[in-house]
């Protein structure tokens, strides 16, 4: 059948360039391998020139594929599955980019693009290490290209072609029996971008994180090059800026993900020890361990074997995290793992194709890697740095085990084990001690000199920051209000110890910049990064330990409701317009607005008033309609930021959410004065019926006539209400005005007066639905900004170090 309106040529070109990128990368790899192994310089140069051109072609091809994918999405060519499944017409430009990395194919493309950028920078440096390093990177490009070529060899699917048509994926869907299926409404728009990803952090976080992932290959490639060429020590200085770059960018990418989670997810925090989060943290921690081992080697010729291992494993754990999150193996244990894409075996091979040869080469050459037999001095910087690296590395291994043990164990042995009852505490109770050790080491280690430190001068220098830290930490411990005893006194003590360690890290490093380095910022990168890291620890501890639920429900719980005594009561119900008591705040749900962004988002305006300061502010937590044909909503929290705290809120439940019709009917009662009408939670008595009475809830205009019935409502909990339903005549028109007692779920109308008997007709309805309300959760996060500021300071420190080391290298290292 010939279909109408398809743009097939574009996809064919796209697929061609995907295959081209594979072929070019493969040839570049071969060229660089030949160049590395060549015996004569001329031969090596010739192969290198060949490989460079092919790597360039690879980069061009990858860029073209990405451009075509973007074109398809931005021009809404919904015959393509990529556009149809991941985008919609309503999305603004920045989110069109998010659509690209919503799918596996797009995130692989992003990863490849960064390898292109890094590869070009490396080629441009013209270093002697170009050939072996680029051989490794080109080979990685081959492996990634395989993920997106989407070809079949026999029945085996290799990679996912990003240019598949919707009709190729859902071949038996009936709409494809018509040649103009593209004009059918459901093909006129896409399924949309996942509502949770419609957040500005999701535009910027994935590219940064993938740059971080991609950059781990550079130290790995240098390490491989060293083993391969048997020039074990020559690369460590040249690779140092790359290690610093990787540590800085990966750290930044992870923390941007944390910022996204904090802003748009509702677990009330920035970190949940989710497998996907852990999978990105682990390579970073190992990279940090590798960085320190590399620094030790550059200064003292020790720890080289450890540096090799750390760089191999840091890169490997990037691949492992890819496998873990994309293979579907995590199943129930993660909220945001990818669903199986049918390329599991391929992902497994991808992981092993790097790990096994790298480890084999490492073990084979292990004995030849230089080391120093003589034991290091306990009063030396390298000794304590190494301990720190080791603790970081082992901590990463423990996290890996906790993340991956149950899914892999279950998969292999068909068991049904699951995470412990309190999964986050299982991590926290271990990592708090890691934080204590690392905090102390971060503070102290720089005060040691490499090789040996005169003990008297060490004591003299460390005493000021130590005393200062003890003083500050004691003050914070006593007056800071850290009383988080949910897990007992032991854990609370550990928190206080960790608080001290993080303060010590900050103070000692600031002091080192001022006293040790005499304020010379140019060389202070490490101390700045350590200060930032200390601040991060401090922010994590303060905000987590002092997090507080503000939305204690003490407003309208009715005493005769079922036993809810042991209830966590972390959600508070706000009835529209009703000022409600919420701890130290008054909270009022003012209104909702669902007219924004084509009705896909409902905003709720919640007014808060501080009881002490009388400060008033409004928050707009909202609900985003789910995309991709799903019913229901996702939460999008809102927060008010202060310099020292955040007030964070989201909608747990809204009366508008169910969207179901209110089927409950009004019941008619004919009553005379002083008659009683019963309802589920109490009774009401008709008190008076009057024409234009002076004191009513209603505003009666001069030309209007109103008959107002006044009812006294008495609920079972002995609260009383006045209801005043009315009939209004404005000129010739009459209108009925209902009155409602929201807390009693009743609405009362007054529809008729019988002139002869004096009886009136009351309409009474009891229903929870008619009451507009929201159930809300409100958190107080103190000092979360310390964490964000710490992150910025730490990343700045990495880049200061990078620039400094690069400058040193330029003076010292040879180029070809």
């Amino acid at each position, binding site marked *: 059948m010939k279909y109408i309106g398809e743009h097939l040529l574009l996809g064919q070109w796209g697929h061609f360039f995907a295959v081209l990128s594979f072929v070019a990368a493969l040839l570049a790899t071969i060229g660089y391998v030949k160049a590395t192994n060549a015996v004569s310089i001329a031969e090596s140069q010739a192969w290198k020139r060949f490989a460079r051109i092919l790597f360039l072609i690879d980069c061009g091809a990858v860029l073209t594929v990405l451009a075509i994918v973007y074109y398809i999405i931005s021009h809404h060519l919904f015959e393509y599955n990529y556009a149809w499944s991941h985008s919609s017409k309503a999305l603004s430009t920045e989110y069109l980019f998010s659509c690209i990395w919503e799918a596996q194919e797009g995130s692989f493309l992003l990863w490849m693009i960064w390898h292109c950028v890094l590869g070009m920078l490396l080629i441009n440096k013209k270093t002697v290490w170009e050939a072996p390093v680029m051989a490794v990177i080109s080979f990685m490009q081959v492996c990634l290209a395989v993920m997106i070529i989407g070809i079949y060899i026999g029945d085996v699917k290799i990679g996912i072609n990003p240019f598949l048509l919707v009709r190729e994926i859902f071949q038996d869907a009936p709409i494809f029996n018509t040649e103009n299926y593209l004009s059918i409404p459901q093909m006129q728009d896409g399924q949309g971008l996942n509502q949770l990803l419609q957040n500005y952090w999701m535009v910027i976080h994935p590219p940064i994180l993938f740059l971080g992932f991609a950059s781990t290959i550079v130290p790995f490639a240098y390490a491989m090059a060293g083993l391969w060429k048997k020039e074990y020590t020559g690369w460590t200085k040249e690779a140092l800026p790359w290690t610093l770059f990787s540590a800085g960018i990966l750290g930044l990418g992870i923390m941007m993900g944390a910022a996204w989670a904090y802003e748009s997810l509702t677990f009330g925090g920035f970190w949940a020890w989710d497998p996907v989060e852990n999978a990105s943290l682990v390579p970073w921690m190992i990279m940090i361990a590798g960085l320190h081992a590399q620094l030790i080697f550059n200064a003292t010729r020790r720890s080289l074997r450890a540096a090799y291992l750390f760089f191999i494993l840091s890169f490997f754990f990037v691949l492992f995290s890819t496998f873990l999150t994309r293979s579907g193996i995590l199943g129930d244990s993660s909220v945001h793992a990818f669903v199986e894409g049918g390329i599991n075996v391929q992902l497994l091979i991808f992981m092993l194709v790097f790990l096994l040869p790298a480890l084999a080469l490492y073990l084979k050459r292990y004995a030849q890697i230089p080391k120093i037999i003589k034991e290091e001095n306990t009063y030396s910087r390298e000794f304590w740095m190494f301990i720190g690296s080791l603790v970081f590395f082992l901590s990463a291994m423990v996290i890996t085990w906790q993340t991956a043990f149950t899914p892999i164990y279950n998969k292999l042995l068909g068991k049904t084990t699951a995470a412990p009852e309190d999964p986050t505490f299982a991590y926290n109770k271990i990592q708090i001690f890691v934080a204590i050790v690392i905090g102390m080491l971060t503070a102290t280690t720089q005060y040691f000199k490499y090789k040996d430190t005169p003990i008297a001068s060490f004591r003299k220098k460390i005493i000021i920051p130590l005393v200062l830290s003890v003083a500050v930490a004691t003050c914070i411990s006593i007056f800071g209000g850290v009383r988080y005893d949910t897990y007992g006194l032991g854990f609370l003590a550990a928190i206080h110890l960790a608080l001290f360690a993080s303060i010590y890290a900050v103070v000692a490093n600031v002091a080192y910049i001022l006293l040790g380095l005499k304020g010379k910022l140019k060389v202070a990168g490490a101390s700045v990064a350590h200060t930032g890291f200390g601040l991060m620890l401090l922010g994590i501890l303060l905000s987590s330990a002092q997090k507080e639920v503000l939305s204690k429900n003490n407003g309208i719980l009715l005493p005769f409701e079922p036993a809810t005594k042991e209830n966590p009561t972390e959600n508070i119900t706000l009835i529209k317009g009703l000022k409600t008591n919420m701890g130290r705040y008054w909270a009022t749900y003012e209104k909702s607005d669902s007219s924004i962004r084509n009705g896909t988002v409902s905003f709720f305006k919640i007014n808060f008033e501080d009881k002490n300061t009388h400060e008033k502010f409004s928050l707009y937590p909202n609900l985003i309609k789910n995309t991709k044909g799903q019913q229901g909503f996702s939460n999008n929290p809102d927060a008010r930021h202060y310099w020292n705290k955040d007030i964070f809120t989201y909608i747990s439940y809204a009366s508008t959410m169910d969207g179901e019709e209110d089927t409950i009917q009004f019941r008619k009662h004919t009553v005379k004065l002083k008659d009683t009408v019963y309802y589920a939670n109490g009774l009401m008595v008709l008190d008076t019926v009057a024409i234009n009475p002076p004191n009513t809830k209603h505003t009666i205009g001069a030309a209007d006539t109103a008959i107002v019935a006044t009812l006294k409502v008495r609920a079972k909990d002995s609260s009383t209400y006045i209801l005043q339903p009315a009939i209004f005549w404005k000129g010739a028109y009459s209108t009925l005005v209902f009155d409602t007692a929201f807390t009693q779920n009743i609405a009362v109308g007054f529809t008729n007066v019988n002139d002869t008997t004096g009886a009136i007709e009351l309409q009474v309805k009891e229903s*929870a639905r008619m009451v507009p309300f929201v159930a809300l959760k409100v958190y107080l996060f103190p000092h979360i900004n310390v964490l964000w500021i710490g992150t910025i300071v730490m990343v700045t420190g990495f880049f200061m170090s990078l620039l400094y080391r690069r400058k040193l290298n330029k003076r010292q290292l040879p180029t070809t």
Partner: protein
Amino acid sequence: MKKTHLVVLVFIAIAIGVLISYTGNLSSYETIASAKQKEGKFVRLIAKVDKASPIEYNPVKDPNYLVFTAIDTLGQTTKVVYLNAKPTDFEKSERLVLNGRMKNGAFECKDMLLKCPSKYKDDPNMAKKNLSFSN
């Protein structure tokens, strides 16, 4: 032996000890029948909402009180008490992972994980449904 080696060994021993204790604390996925046998023990129940039974949730009265019936693939049912807000999409979820304890014939749920297939990623079946004419 070198100091460093000693430290390495000590830390590795600590790490292994920590891992063993972690592995000892693991919970397990259960069916309703097997959870009933382990009354009082923390388990993760895999089930879904029994739509034939009423779902009791009145957020105006108490937003932190949800009672419903869960049914598992073997057809067993249990009453579930969840002292928290009803999660969004609760009725539409295809599968629930309920974390908590069986107590006095009812499952006291501490928290739950909803499985709406395309909550985070795409669900081919859902996409397929959107391609049918009846849409």
